[in-house]
């Protein structure tokens, strides 16, 4: 009888096999699409299964190759991994329909390696979420990054290449710093297994050298998650590739950085250090404010979204900074909300771009009159981002603000609420300029097209936008289940005994 733990292999082995198969079917578009669909379905089913299994019976853990932890290759999934895995699998699955249409990504790009690179990236993301070893985490990060380099530069337009230079360089530096941090941890504790490191950091107290390790972790994951002083690469590169690629990269990659920050700063290191807490709170506040200021200054739809991503990373770091059970549960919920909403805003952006041929405020307008359904989908996501009740962003912000007030962190709560208001201002500007405003007259007469016809042409893209909007609305009106899962995730992160016993306890039997 095979143990249920083996299901942990499915979410990342399927994309790997699919990616290799796709390379065999080079330039056979239909075959590649079918393989991608197959992999997406398997990932989705298996990650939902993992989620339910973990909700049911605690966490899953697999020692690959039979070597006991902390010496072997550890795969371990707790609630946080499972939730992010599910969100990522949903996005990956829906991207299939979005990428069917040649207007979301050109046919040439799809013929020359879009699907294999995408699958390799999903492979890396899912691996990073499941691994229980920090060196393996580094390797998964690299898999994910190299694939994302390929996706960013696919097509080789001048703008894309320029954005990629910045993206590649800064991410390479971040990875080197990550490697340095692993070196420090190995030097101090003699292990790279997360559970083992956690035991050692908590029992012996963190020495000064280990603290330096934490600093390296924070800087390297801070770069990957685009936190305050380290975010300049993001708005320089995220808007350059085709929108299907922007959407998946924007939805997932920075959140994997935050996931790694959760694993190191909360799980491995003791979270009771006041100085570290304040550092995180400061980073969170500045990230929110500077990000939202950047968004106010922009007039390009995709660039505004890039800055909104930065701004809203602050909320998740705020959860780490407050550090109570409630705050971390709120932050986990916020991560899920952010993945789905940001990706859907980019997806909507792709359709707007199709309709008016660009993303600029000055040349836009009239979407609401012509495409009411699309406008509704945008409205749901935008208001959710701003935190209007009862949408998802409201629940996340509400829990975080409550945790902050209970814990006495009034300043950061004030900053987060102000950021929510400014977000409302920013999305309102998009709404007014692109959706409500009359379309500019001096332009060449655009083909007038009814929404039904427009939706039939772009049916794949509409299907994706609509289904994600439904997922977001479901999460909004029935938040209890997701919030209780988020609380379990916070439980698993803070009460480390379960994780440690599960991973290291298997040494005995």
């Amino acid at each position: 009888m095979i143990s249920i733990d083996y299901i942990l292999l499915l979410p990342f082995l399927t994309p790997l096999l699919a990616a290799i198969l796709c390379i065999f079917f080079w330039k056979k578009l239909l075959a590649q699409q079918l393989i991608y669909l197959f992999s997406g379905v398997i990932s989705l089913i298996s990650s939902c299964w993992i989620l339910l299994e973990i909700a049911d019976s605690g966490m899953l853990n697999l020692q690959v190759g039979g070597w006991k932890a902390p010496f072997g290759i550890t795969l371990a999934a707790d609630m946080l991994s499972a939730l992010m895995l599910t969100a990522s699998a949903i996005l990956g699955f829906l991207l299939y329909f979005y990428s069917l249409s040649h207007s979301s990504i050109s046919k040439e790009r799809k013929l020359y390696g879009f699907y294999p690179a995408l699958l390799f990236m999903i492979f890396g993301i899912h691996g990073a979420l499941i691994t229980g070893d920090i060196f393996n985490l580094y390797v998964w990060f690299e898999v994910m990054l190299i694939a994302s380099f390929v996706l960013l530069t696919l097509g080789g337009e001048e703008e894309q290449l320029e954005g990629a230079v910045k993206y590649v360089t800064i991410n390479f530096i971040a990875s080197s710093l990550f490697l340095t941090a692993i070196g420090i941890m190995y030097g101090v504790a003699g292990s790279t297994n997360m559970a083992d490191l956690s035991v050692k950091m908590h029992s012996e107290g963190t020495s000064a050298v280990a603290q330096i390790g934490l600093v390296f972790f924070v800087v390297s994951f801070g770069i990957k998650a685009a936190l305050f002083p380290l975010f300049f690469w993001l708005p320089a590169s995220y808007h350059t590739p085709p929108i299907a690629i922007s959407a998946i990269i924007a939805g997932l990659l920075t959140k994997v950085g935050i996931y790694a920050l959760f694993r190191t700063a909360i799980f491995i290191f003791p979270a009771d250090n006041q100085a570290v807490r304040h550092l995180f709170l400061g980073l969170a506040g500045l990230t929110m404010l500077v990000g939202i200021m950047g968004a106010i200054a922009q007039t390009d739809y995709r660039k505004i979204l890039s800055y909104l991503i930065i701004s809203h990373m602050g909320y998740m770091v705020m959860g780490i900074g407050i550090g109570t059970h409630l705050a971390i549960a709120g932050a986990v919920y916020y991560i899920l909300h952010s993945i789905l909403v940001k990706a859907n805003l980019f997806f909507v952006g792709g359709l707007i771009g199709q309709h008016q041929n660009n993303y600029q405020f000055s040349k836009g307008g009239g979407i609401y009159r012509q495409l009411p359904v699309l406008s509704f989908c945008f409205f749901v996501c935008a208001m959710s981002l701003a935190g209007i009740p009862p949408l998802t962003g409201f629940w996340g912000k509400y829990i975080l603000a409550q945790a902050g007030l209970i814990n006495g962190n009034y300043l950061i709560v004030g900053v987060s609420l102000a950021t929510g208001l400014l977000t409302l201002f920013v999305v309102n500007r998009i709404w007014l300029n692109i959706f409500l405003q009359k379309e500019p007259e001096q332009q060449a007469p655009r083909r007038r097209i009814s929404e039904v016809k427009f939706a039939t042409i772009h049916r794949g893209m509409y299907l994706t936008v609509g289904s994600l909007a439904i997922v977001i609305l479901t999460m909004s009106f029935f938040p209890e289940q997701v919030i209780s899962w988020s609380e379990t995730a916070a439980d698993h992160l803070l009460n480390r005994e379960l994780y440690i016993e599960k991973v290291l306890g298997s040494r005995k039997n």
Partner: protein
Amino acid sequence: MEIFMAIVTGTLYAGGLYLLMHRSFIKLVMGIILFAHASNFFLFTAGGIVRGMPAFVSDGNPNVGELSDPLPQALILTAIVIGLGIQAFAIVLLKRVHFTAGTSDLDKLKNTDREDND
């Protein structure tokens, strides 16, 4: 030996960072390579250096304390391979940028940061 390695590692980090600050593509690539070497050396040194000993238990020498640690070696082997891949990608990327943008000055690559571009 550790002191010597520490100096080498520090110099590599400093040199890599110094080159990364430059505007030329070539220096950028050199910087990336030096930075990767620096972190590999760091990982190697932090794992503890044992000289003249194999990383496996040979016949009749079960004294584990005298062996060198195989794990850092395995780790940097992986890191070197990954670093090589990224460096190769960076070189090709910069060559393409040089072809399409017609410049090898990083300061000229400001188009994606501008506010008014489409």
